[in-house]
């Protein structure tokens, strides 16, 4: 038996290996809940989440692990990689498949990058190409050097920073307008005390119909990295044009025990562990925004008072062919609802 860190590997008629991926694990404890041989143990979640100690959230007991692969199939974050003859069961049609996914409709996306900013795992990359300014605004601008008194008002006022004045040589000051930057707003013309600026905006005089609609289009690409996406729903909620659809790993609800007295700011273990940025402390109490919660249960595991209950009603895991596996998977739904 070869042992490398949190990896278990054995060779028989098949070569099987289980590899714990620290960077993907959120400490939810789904694997420790369903492991049939109790080979998986959770470490001190809160200190790990806070970076107080460098440890893995999950420890695999190599002696107890029977390399069944159940943990790998049940982990919604793909933090356990189980391979048979060097091939991940992710690609093996005999094994369960998660239905969770996040998708951005390219037709609808306006490349505003709101999702990119909101994504708690930095899984989204949006690249966009804005129209060229010179194709959208055009006009004429000229500063009469003989009239100009080089007061610098226009340079200071220009919102496009298109005007530059050089006064290194006081005898021969220079003033230039960068026409690639100029938006023909005419502020320079209005602010010039000696009317040295001659400027006209072509769009204003002739209307916007001169612009080729193709030139005004914003183009781009939006991409969700499946490797890091946890299907939390932030992108879906924040998208101003409803271009994103997210299917979460579980359906159900998260509730607080009635007798639970949350210590809020004193503790905030739930806030620290939540991979989805779904929890905040409001008026001294933990509040979960269900729009962003994926019911992974990390908060319930981290809560020192065990005051959080994850009530999963459905698991979006398909193709569970084995009955014994189904029974174990059902635990995630059943035990949670108790």
């Amino acid at each position, binding site marked *: 038996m070869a042992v490398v860190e949190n990896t278990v590997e054995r060779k028989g008629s098949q070569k099987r290996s289980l590899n714990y991926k620290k960077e993907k694990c959120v400490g939810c404890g789904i694997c420790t809940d369903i492991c049939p041989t109790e080979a998986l143990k959770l470490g*001190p*979640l*809160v*200190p790990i989440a*806070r970076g*107080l*100690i460098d440890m893995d959230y999950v420890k695999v007991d190599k002696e107890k692990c029977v390399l069944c692969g159940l943990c790998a199939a049940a982990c919604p974050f793909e933090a356990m990689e189980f391979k048979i003859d060097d091939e991940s069961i992710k690609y093996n049609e005999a094994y369960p498949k998660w239905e969770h996914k996040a998708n951005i409709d390219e037709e609808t996306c306006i490349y505003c990058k709101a999702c990119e900013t909101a994504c708690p795992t930095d899984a989204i990359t949006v690249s966009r190409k804005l129209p060229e300014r010179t194709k959208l605004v055009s006009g004429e601008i000229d500063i009469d050097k003989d009239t100009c008194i080089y007061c610098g008002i226009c340079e200071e006022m220009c919102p496009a920073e298109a005007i530059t004045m050089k006064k290194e040589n006081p005898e021969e000051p220079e003033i230039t307008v960068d026409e690639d930057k100029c938006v023909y707003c005419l502020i320079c013309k209005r602010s010039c005390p000696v009317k040295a600026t001659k400027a006209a905006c072509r769009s204003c005089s002739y209307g916007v119909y001169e612009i080729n609609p193709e030139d005004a289009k914003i183009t781009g690409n939006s991409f969700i990295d499946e490797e890091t996406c946890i299907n939390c729903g932030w992108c879906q909620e924040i998208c101003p044009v409803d271009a994103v659809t997210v299917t979460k790993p579980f359906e159900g609800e998260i509730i607080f025990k009635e007798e639970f*007295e949350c*210590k809020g*700011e*004193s*503790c905030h*273990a739930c806030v620290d562990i939540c991979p989805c940025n779904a929890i905040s402390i409001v008026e001294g109490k933990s509040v979960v925004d269900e729009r962003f919660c994926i019911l992974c249960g990390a908060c319930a595991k981290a809560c*020192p*008072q065990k005051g959080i209950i994850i009530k999963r009603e459905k698991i979006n895991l398909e193709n569970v062919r084995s009955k014994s596996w189904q029974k174990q998977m059902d635990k995630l739904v059943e035990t949670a609802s108790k």
Partner: protein
Amino acid sequence: MPVVIDMEKCGKIKDCPGEVLCIKVCEQGALIEEDGELVLVPENCDDCDICIQSCPNQAISKKS
């Protein structure tokens, strides 16, 4: 009611396998180091219990 430290299980701070995670996780300053030993400041304890699960020696508990 504040937590209770079992000094026998706790031992000296220099021997702590968790490198005093209890002190690090408690943001209320209810657990402090004094002369190489862990000391509880009961009036600072907010009963959040976060130290209990962080102790590798299981030396912190609640009197029930």
